[in-house]
């Protein structure tokens, strides 16, 4: 939607900074209003721009003072738990990103080992020259997992065969009843 990715640092050009501020502030206030309407919740904002002395407030001074009163009445633990500053917010985002990164790296590692396994099968020659002990360990685990799946599949396939055999056997008594003395001519 935007023209390009913005570098997350203070914009040095004064007029660019002013334009960006106006645009982003308006969009943010829109988001705030939508959040309040869609979820039927109370929300407020106080914004001090670097260009003005007076703050912009929403929805109104009165509403804000009410909200602040409500905030004060809350036990200290409650409100401070979710009270974020720029620093704590960013720290939180960073640790979430690291956690995701770790997870995706692990998933990719699994995918690569799977590829090694399949390529070894395809070529008929093991393809693990570049793997270290830890990788080999993981690869072994992966192979065993696949073997277990195969065993389970074979078991269920055999069960299916037995099932259909049982059904065939059940038909016979009915045939006998039609001719109770099959050996009699």
């Amino acid at each position, binding site marked *: 939607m935007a023209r390009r990715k*913005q570098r*997350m640092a*203070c*914009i040095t050009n004064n007029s660019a*900074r002013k334009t*960006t*501020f106006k645009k*982003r502030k308006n969009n943010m206030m829109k*988001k705030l209003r*939508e*959040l309040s*309407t*869609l*979820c*039927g*919740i*109370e*929300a407020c*904002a*106080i914004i*001090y*721009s*670097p260009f003005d*002395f007076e*703050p912009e407030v929403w929805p109104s001074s009165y509403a804000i*003072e009410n*909200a602040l009163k409500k*905030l004060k009445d*809350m036990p200290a633990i409650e*409100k401070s738990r*979710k*009270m*974020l500053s*720029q*620093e704590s917010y*960013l720290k939180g985002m960073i640790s979430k*990103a690291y956690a995701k990164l770790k997870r*995706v790296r692990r*998933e*990719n*590692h699994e995918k*690569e080992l*799977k*590829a*090694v396994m*399949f*390529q*070894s*099968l395809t070529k*008929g020659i093991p393809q693990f020259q*570049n793997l*270290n*002990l830890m*990788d*080999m360990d993981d690869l072994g685990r992966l192979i*065993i997992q*696949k073997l277990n799946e*195969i*065993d389970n*599949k074979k078991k269920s396939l055999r069960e299916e065969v037995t099932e259909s055999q049982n059904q065939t056997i059940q038909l016979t008594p009915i045939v006998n009843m039609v001719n109770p003395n099959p050996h009699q001519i």
Partner: protein
Amino acid sequence: MVRKSKGRQKVEMVKMANDSNLQVTFSKRRSGLFKKASELCTLCGAEIAIIVFSPGRKVFSFGHPCVETVVDRFLTRNPPLHHQNSGTMQLIEAHRNANVRELNAELTQVSNELEAERKRGEELNRVQRASQGNCWWESPIEKMEMSHCEQLGGSLEELKKAVAKQVDRLLIQTTTNPNSYFAAGSSGHPTLIPNGGFNGVPVMPTHPHPHAWNPGYGRFF
């Protein structure tokens, strides 16, 4: 391709009817709102405070430099402390700004790494899907017939033995040279040999030939 969710849809600006949708919407939009607020502060040097009461009557707030200072400034109609001629306040302010700069830089860096890793994952998926078309032994075991199960099982058993052999070899190498535990390439990045398309059935030698080992074997000794 089956869509997991309906995707972007225009939503009417009234209170949401479905309660669980409302909760999810609150969570996502609040998160997005705080992100926008953080960016506004970083990019333009604004000082803001946002207070939001959740449907569950919990309170979420975001503030820069922090909720309390902005609220105090609003209530007392005083100019911000750092505008006053206080050396200490200015120092604190400068320190905080430096912190925020560093944190933003770190967040950008980690986000970029995450993006790169995700792209790598998608590429791996693509390659896997492509080869799955050519090789029956790569398709899900769920759908396999008995003869394929037996054949694949046999090949995997052979491969398992090959793995065990290699592990032994690496262990010997480790005991003679403890530094080489993590050697032989970085963990998690084996060379991906692109599959050029294969017909026919996987062949695993019933008696593993020494010749089947890559010359890499010779590298270690």
